[in-house]
């Protein structure tokens, strides 16, 4: 079952087009990674899926339903949860309060304060601390926990490793299996290729707003992905054998 289908997406900001013609599909229960260099358009794709960025062209289907015209707060209620780049925690609220606000989607599911604290014990230890006084890694954990509190069917993770020490990123990625086993599909944006290849089922490479490579992580070779990432001409036409 396809949980997310994006067809011919084109989007941008006032005088700048970030996404030209992107199509991708995520099957339920899988993890798809969007890889590409800085400025390739990955964040814009995620924002369009979350409903923050209105597409100029194309359609987005979530669970079979066309949500292209649905505003962001309603998409969250339908089950699309975005952990935005830069985390955007509420600085004057405590860790626990940030998590509780995440439950505003009122969606039923396995995630609540108890289960989030179980998966990320470091949050429980800091529950009363104001979010502004957390380290980068702690904030990232809260941001993910907050999105999970909404019990999303599709979790969009934007650059969760950005600016964080490798050990901290390890801890965060250790939570991924638990998230997947609860039934949530994940769309992940990452610059760190190594990290990505260890968790992703499917890979889509984006360069300057277009898809240059897509396939399963099993079927694509490292070389192919690296070339696509850096935009060598040869990889533009190649699609891997599934």
């Amino acid at each position, binding site marked *: 079952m396809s949980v997310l289908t994006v067809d011919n997406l084109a989007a941008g900001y006032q005088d700048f087009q970030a996404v030209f013609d992107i199509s991708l599909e995520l099957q339920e229960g899988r993890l798809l990674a969007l890889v590409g260099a800085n400025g390739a358009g990955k964040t814009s794709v995620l924002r369009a899926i979350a409903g*923050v960025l209105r597409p100029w062209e194309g359609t987005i289907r979530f669970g079979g339903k066309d949500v292209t015209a649905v505003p962001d*707060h309603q998409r969250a209620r339908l089950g699309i949860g975005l952990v935005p780049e830069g985390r955007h925690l509420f600085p*004057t*609220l405590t860790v626990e309060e*940030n998590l*509780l606000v995440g439950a505003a989607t009122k969606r039923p599911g396995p995630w609540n304060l108890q289960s989030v604290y179980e998966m990320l014990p470091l949050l429980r230890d800091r529950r009363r601390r104001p979010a502004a006084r957390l380290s980068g890694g702690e904030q990232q954990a809260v941001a993910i926990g907050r999105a999970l509190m909404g019990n999303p069917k599709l979790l969009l993770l934007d650059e969760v490793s950005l600016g964080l020490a490798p050990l901290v990123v390890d801890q965060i990625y250790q939570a991924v299996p638990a998230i997947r086993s609860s039934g949530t599909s994940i769309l992940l944006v990452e610059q760190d290729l190594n990290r990505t290849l260890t968790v992703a089922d499917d890979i889509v490479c984006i360069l300057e707003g277009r898809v240059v490579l897509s396939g399963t992580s099993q079927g694509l070779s490292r070389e192919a992905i690296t070339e696509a990432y850096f935009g060598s001409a040869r990889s533009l036409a190649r699609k891997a054998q599934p």
Partner: protein
Amino acid sequence: MNWINAIVQGIMLGGVFAIAASGLSLMFGVMRIANLAHGDLMVLGGYLAAVSAKRWGIPVPLTILVSVALLGALGWGLQRAALDRALRTSDMAPLLVTFGVSVIIPNVLVELFTSNSEPLSIGQLGTASIHFGSDISVGWFPLITLIAAVVVLGALELFLRRTQPGRILRATSDDAPTVRLLGINDRRVYALATAISLATVALAGTLYTMKQGGITPFEGQLTVLFAFEAVIIGGIGSLWGTLVGGIVLGVAQSVGAQISPDLPLLIGHLVFLAVLALRPQGILGREAFA
């Protein structure tokens, strides 16, 4: 010992200022809107109470509820109809809209009710007082007002800190776009903030009217200044600061009246300017205007 009496009276007076100011504080905190129509809305609240007593025969203490409900509903409507759009238009637009409202309200009131005082009497309660010794007397009604201020501010604090809607309100004031990512319609949040703000304004206006025995259309131009002064003296961003600010202002005015009957306003304003000059972040304020 007239001074002590004056100070006591001032503390009581501060109660009304504090209630009025808390609504202002809320709207500013959540939406960064400085509501210039605040005073006129207070006056409107007083009129709603007075009219409901006179025309619909509602018992005077219950007119508070009528005023609160009607003005709260008006707040919701005002936000959805005009202020939402103003927030998206420019930084200045909300200020201009509220200023427009502050012109419309008193002029409509003067046309409907003339500029004579529209009465609202609380009878015996207005003059009854408790006596401490021979010099100090505390009026029952001012005391009730002060208690009401503490209760209202306490309730607001509790609402913001302990309830989910309150949490959502605080989160929205931190970061409205992110709140939408979590499934919350920020426009509804703003409407709620405005509704609560206007409900407290209605309470303040009704108490103010009761205290004076009546209300006239243009008094809003005075009360808006008091409300803002209370917020700034106490410190923006602190609800308890608003109570402190209201009390300081009330005492300043009361002591001023003690010195000379034409001084209360001037002394109050000068105290405000002094706080602005010497401690701009206010007494309990956390953020200074950078």
